[in-house]
Structure formats: C-alpha cells, structure tokens
C-alpha cells in the first residue's frame, strides 16, 4: 500500500508539468494579451509593442516556454504580467476562502445528502422516497448562480442574517468566518447533496436486495443494524467515488459562487487572469487544479481499500 501511494505521488510530478505545458500552449492560441489590459485604450501601436517587448511577449513561443519551464523547475511560478507580483503571493491569500467554502460545502453535502439517501432507501417508493427524489431532481437541476442570487436576496437583503459580500478570515474569529461562508457553502452544497442522496439511495436499495442482507435479517438482526452495519458500508463505494469528484468540483468550481458573493477566492482569480491574459497565473492555477484532482483521486483509492477489505493495491 505504501509503495503504491509513493508511486502515485511520484507520478504527480510529470502530470503536473504536462498540464502546465498544455496550458501554456493553449493560452498561446487565445487572441490578445495582457498588454491590452495594461496600456491605455488610446495608446499607439508602437507603445503597445514596446510594452510587449518589455514583458517578453514578443519572444518566440519556444523561448517563452523554455524560460517559464526553467523557472518552474526552480520552484518559481513566475510573476504576474500585470501587477508584477509573484504568482504565489497572489494565490496564497486566496486559498483560504476557497478551501473554507469547499470544506463547509462538502460537510453540508455529506450531512444532508447521505441521510436523505438512507431515508429514501429505508422505504423505497414511499412518499418519503419520492420527496427525496423531488429534492434531488430540483437540487441538481437548478443553476447555481440562480440559487445564489435567490439566497443572497432572501437571506442577505430581505432577512439580513448573512453579509451580502466579503470573506472574513478564520483568524478573525470562528463565528464571523462561519457567517461569511455559510450562505455560499449552502448554495454549492445543494446540488452535491442531491447527487449524494441519489447515489446513496441507489446503492442502498441495490445492496439491500443481496443474499447476505436476507441472511442478516433471517438472523433476526434489527433493521437499523442491517442498514448501517451491513448494507451501508458496501453501498458507500460508489458514494466515495462521487465524493472524490464532487470535492474536486467544490475546490475548483466555485467561480460563480465567488463572484456572486464577492469572495476573493481562487476561482475569481482564475477568471480574471484568463480575461486579462495573465498567463503565469492561469498556468499556476491549472497546475494546482491538476494537483487537487490527483490527490483527491489518491485519497479516494485509499478510502476504497478501507471500505472494502477485498481491494488491495
């Protein structure tokens, strides 16, 4: 198992570099560059070219790539073309808001989705099951931005329980921190909770029809024990798979939520960097996304082995 984990960790290095290289060449295809953002609208073409020279954007693509890769091997993610600040210094303060929302979003999704799925599986095709199904369909279908606006209007404007905008760091107190991330976390957790509920329900209904469950029931075990001790562990493997993907989605896909709730997170940074053609930031964020994917997948694989002792690496 340890050797397997080590192998997987080592494999991240070439993958991340590959993602970086892919991002580099893809961004070259996009029209325009950071000069259009930096320089005045009425600047002459000569002034634009002078700035392009100074930023090294007129160098051949391969020269730019070699320069960027060289810096990357030295652990330097580069400098923003626009602010001239190191990319790491722009990214690091934005990690906390994004991870905070993703963390609370994940917790809420699990706490809401899995119990709902278990409830639905308890009495399949009952009224309760249909209610959970209704919630799942609505939760999964409603666009996140619409839900975000609705939540903002209801719980920040009409009932001013939560702030309209901004993020409060956990260092300023747990309660203010929770207050600033609760609404966005609830919004992002609705769709993921809906998925969890469906996955859990389906998995449980399937497992509950297996022979060993019939045996357990024949032994006279309480229904609660049958469900939680015998059925749920086996039904949880597809849930774990989904959890992995959804966590990645929560970490890397909070862009809209960050924009609506004015949260200074990584998603907003990525959107701004893409629009401004601030390549070093885009490359670094895409590599970070790749890393998150790899590590969460690794964690998912480890959890498989825990959930199902037959799985060995």
């Amino acid at each position, binding site marked *: 198992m340890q050797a397997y984990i080590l192998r997987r960790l080592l494999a991240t290095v070439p993958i991340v570099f590959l993602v970086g290289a892919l991002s580099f060449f893809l961004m070259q295809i996009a029209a*325009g560059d950071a000069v259009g953002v930096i320089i005045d609208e*009425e600047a*002459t073409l000569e002034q634009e070219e002078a700035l392009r020279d100074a930023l090294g954007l007129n160098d051949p693509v391969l020269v730019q790539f070699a320069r960027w890769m060289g810096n990357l091997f030295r652990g330097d993610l580069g400098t923003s073309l626009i602010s001239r600040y190191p990319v790491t210094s722009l990214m690091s303060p934005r990690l906390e808001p994004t991870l905070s929302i993703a963390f609370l979003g994940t917790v809420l999704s699990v706490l809401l989705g899995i119990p709902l799925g278990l409830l639905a599986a308890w009495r399949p095709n009952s009224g309760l099951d249909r209610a959970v199904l209704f919630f799942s369909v609505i939760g999964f279908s409603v666009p996140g931005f619409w839900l975000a606006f609705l939540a903002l209007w209801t719980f*920040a404007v009409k009932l001013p329980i939560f702030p309209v*905008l901004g993020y409060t760091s956990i260092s300023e107190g747990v309660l203010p921190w929770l207050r600033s991330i609760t609404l966005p976390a609830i919004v992002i957790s609705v769709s993921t909770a809906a998925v969890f509920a469906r996955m859990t329900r389906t998995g449980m209904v399937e497992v509950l029809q297996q022979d060993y469950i019939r045996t357990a029931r024949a032994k006279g075990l309480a229904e609660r024990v049958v469900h939680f001790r015998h059925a749920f562990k086996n039904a949880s493997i597809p849930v774990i798979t989904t959890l992995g993907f959804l966590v990645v989605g929560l970490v890397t896909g909070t862009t809209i939520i960050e*924009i609506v709730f004015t949260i*200074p997170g990584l998603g907003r940074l990525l959107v701004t960097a893409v629009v401004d053609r601030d390549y070093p930031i885009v490359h670094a964020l895409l590599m970070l996304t790749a890393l998150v994917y790899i590590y969460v997948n690794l964690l998912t694989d480890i959890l498989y082995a825990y959930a199902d002792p037959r799985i060995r690496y």
Partner: protein
Amino acid sequence: MNIVKRLRLPAAVAIVAGTLAATLACTTETVREVPVDRVVTQEVVREVPVEKVVEVEKEVVRTVEVEKPIEVIKEVVREVEVPGETVVVEKEVVRTVEVEKPVVVTQEVVREVEKIVLKDPRAGGTLRSNFPGMKTLDIQTAAGPGEVATQTHEGIFARTAAMTSAGMQVDSWQASSDGLTWRFHLRDGLKFHNGEPVTARDVRGSAERSKDKPGLYVQFYQDFMDEWTEIDDNNFQITLKKKAPFTLDALADGGATPTVPREIWQLPVTQASTVLIGAGPYKLEEWVPGDKTTLSRFEDYIPSEQRSSFMTGKKVALIDTIEYIEVPDTAAQIAAIETGQIDVLLSVGGDFAERLEKHRDVNLINLESPARRLGIWLQHDHPPFDDLRMRKALQLAIDSEDILRGAIGPAKYWRTCASIWSCGTAWETDAGSEVYNVKDLEQARQLVKDAGHEGYEVKFIVGEYHPVLAGSSKVVRDIMESIGLRVDYQAMDNATWRATRADSDNWDALITASVGFYHPYLGATAHLKKEGWLHKYKDDTGKLTALWDKLFADVYTIEEIQAIAEEIAEAVYEDVPIVSVGEYFELAAARTDVKGFAPLLWNRPFFNVWLER
C-alpha cells in the same frame, strides 16, 4: 431652456472678460495668452470647514522646592577589649547634627505654546466603495489605481468643476511677455507619503515619465515644449518652442502628470511600479489584489488655501479610512448599497438605476454634463467604408433613440445630441447636424447600392464585456442589415477586442463609449485627425487636417475658437470620420448619509466628503 441657451454665451464672455480684467489688474505681463478654457458653464464649489489649528501662548509659574539635606557628621571610634585591661583604641559614635531645613522656592516663568486642534465634528469613519479593480500599483497603466489615485495623488494642475484648469501643487505661475517661458512655484509643505518633500525635480521626473500618455499632454510635450528645467527645489520653468494657448490645460490633462517620488519616476514606463506613493490627502494602507484596497488619511498633507472645486483647491480628508472593495457582480453591488454594506457605487448601469432611484436610503447621482459619447468608428483604409457614400449611408440610417434605448434603457439616462462637441458645454453647436438622426433608410439603401456594396459582409467587432457596447451594437447590426448589408457580428472580450482592432484588416466597424469631444483641445479630439486613431481616417479632402492645424497654430479668442470648432463640426458631418450616435450619462450612487460627494466625469473624489452617522 432657450433663455438659458441664449444667455450662456454672453455670460461666458462676461466671465472671461472679468477674469481677464482681474488678471491684467494683478500683473503687468503683456501675455497674449487667452485663457480659452475660462468659460464657466457650471461651477460646483464646496467649502468644507476644516480642522483648525489654534496656537495658544501661556505663562506658567513653576514652583521649585529645594530641600537642603540633613548634615550628618560621622565620627568612628572603635573600642577594642584586651584581656585584663580595657584599652580604648577606637570608638564609634554617630553624631547627628541637626541643621535647619530651609526650603528654597524659586519661581520660573516658562512660555509654552500649546497646539490645539479643533477637529471638525464631521471627521471620522470608514467609507466603503465598490471598485472595478486595481491590477497594478503603477499609475501610468490603464489597469492601475484609477479612482484610488484620485485620492492619493496630485498633479501640478487639475480641473475645476467647470473644466477649467487651476493650480494644485503650484500656487503661483508667471508667463513671459512672449508666452514662451513659464515659471512655476510649488506650494509650501508638499510631502510624499514616504515622508520625502515634493521637489521641482520630482515634478520634472514625473512629467518625463508621463510624456507618452495619450491625450493633449503628449502633444504639448512633443510638439510644443522645448525644455523643462528646475530652478531650485520649489521652482521650475518650462520653455516652449512655440506659443501653446493650452499650456495649463495640457498640464492638467486628465491627471496625466501626477507627481510621484524618485523611486517611481526613475523607472522606465514599461516597468510597472510595485509601490503606490503620491502626495495626495490619502495614502495606501493595504492592497489585497483582486479583493480590496484600503486608504487612510495622510496626516502630513497640508491642504491648499484655494477654494475647493472638483479636483482642485482645498482638499480635506474628513473620512479616516476608505475601503475600495472589488464587487464583480452587478446584482451584488446593488444589494450591497441597499443594505448599507457599501456606501458608494462608483458607477451604476441603466438597468438598476431606476431601482436605486426609488430607494429611500440611496441617492442616485446623474452626471449629466459632460456625458459619455457613443460613436461608430468606421475603418477607412479598405472597403466598404473607405467610400464616403457608405459612411454617409450609415449616418443617414442611424436611429439614435433606438440605439441609446438598447444600450442604456430609460430615456432619462441618455440624450440625443446633434452637436459633435459635447452637449451642455460651451462648444455645443448645431453646425452640420442636418444629417444627424434622420433615419432615412431609403436614401441610405440607395447610397449603398450606388457604392456597389449591397450584400457586403461588414466585419463588426463588438466589446461584449461592456454592457453599453453590447446593447448598442445589436441595434446597429439591425440597422446595417436594414440598408442592405450583411453583418459578421463578432462578440469578444476586452483583450480579444483590443488585439483584433489593432489590425485594421480585422474590422470594418466598431462602437466605442468615450469621454467624447468636450473641449477643442482635450478629450478624444486627436482621433478625428488624419491617421489619428485605429480607424486610419484618410481625410481625403484635407479639410479637417487644415482646421486642426489652424486651431493649434495661434492664440485665439473664445469666439474665434468657437468659430473653428463649428467648422470642425461641419467637416465631421461632411466627411464622416465617425458616426455620432448620442450621449449617455454616467451614474453613481451613494447612501444618503454620505455628504459632500460630488463626482464628475471619471473622478469620484472622497476628500471633502463626510459621513453623517
């Protein structure tokens, strides 16, 4: 309204005459300098009570008590016992001599100067404003501090509410009789936020770094200025190659020359500064890129003694802290000001304006004049718009009301404007405007047919990131199609739009929303010159080029400049370097407890503003 219009010119002339008379009375200089920009159309002057410094001199009688110590005489005698006999060798005796304890009281008179600061009762608090974002700390970049620099920086000259120029960092200046040498004196007590004094050398260095900044200033710097020298720390001199009637305007042009310290002005303009240091009433406290920018009062700032008017005169930092917060989503901006989580919205879109207008705790501020100009730029260096008939066809087909409604919304936030020069300014004229907004589709179709371009596919590039451009472009596309053209409508983001329009082959038409033509010497007028901008205006008749040359060739009276401006307006309608659509108003909003907030054009000053809470 007509009476006002009729009275505007005589009033302006009277004011100018008065200004001239006052100037002549004060100086014996025989400068033929005509203050072309002294036409006062509106003056928003705010006198803000400031902190008072009272110096009190008082006499203090100090009583000093001196206590004389007790005198102790110590005699040491030691007694040593020898067995069998007692021999006194030494004996220790302590003898205390009682002496008097006289207390000497002296009186000394100390003159103390006490500085009492009578703080304005309105001072204090934190003002929160939305902000489109500061991506770099360099003021010479478009992505730079923008609004932040309004509070943190000052230049040697700045604009008054009437768009005239007034000294900001200079308190006096003098022109030689031939108008070619100008001497300036810096205001006393100017300091940068890093504590260094502002010197004439910094002013020159800052001007040098700004010299390529687009606008009138670059023309002044390149074509008119001969030498800029510092005489000493507080005085500098500018010598001109030829007379420039707009010298002070150029020095105040759009804040082109904010003064920065040596560590910034010595950087090449292609190397962005990573610090923000100015000499304005507020200084940068914290910058979190992409999130917020915090300013605090610069305690060492000494306000000018002049009357406060827009960006000039006395600036008092009444608010303790200004927080600029980047709120990217418009709905969130509106929700934030409605709930009081931000106090000021720097800009409001037409869609939400009516909602805010009805809100009891929010004031919507309509910056009617000068307004923004919506114009269609046509590429002149290739078909179809290299043909005058095609340009005229589009001019005839334009339905300004439709376009402005599509771009902005309710009619109270825009106006049709037949004048090429901004409506509501002293330069407004109807000259040549018979062809403006006539909506003559039939004649337009005929012209397209005559030019042989029926069915031509026009490459129309659209800055879709900008709601006004996106909205107006859709209506213009329909108009083009209605006169027999096909439209290749290319919607793009800012960076792509900028890159695409840089190459004239990439486009035939585009729309911009600019500050327009609010002054013959200022604004976007350079774009109406031959090869003046990206549209590569050809000026086949040479008429406009001759008029521009004439305008910059000599010093004129107001009437003479107005006459040339009218000729320019006529020539623009004749040769159509741009198709003018109309004007829309910049809107800002502030909570009702924000007092003294008087934004104008692109500036939203927060000095002389206070919170009534």
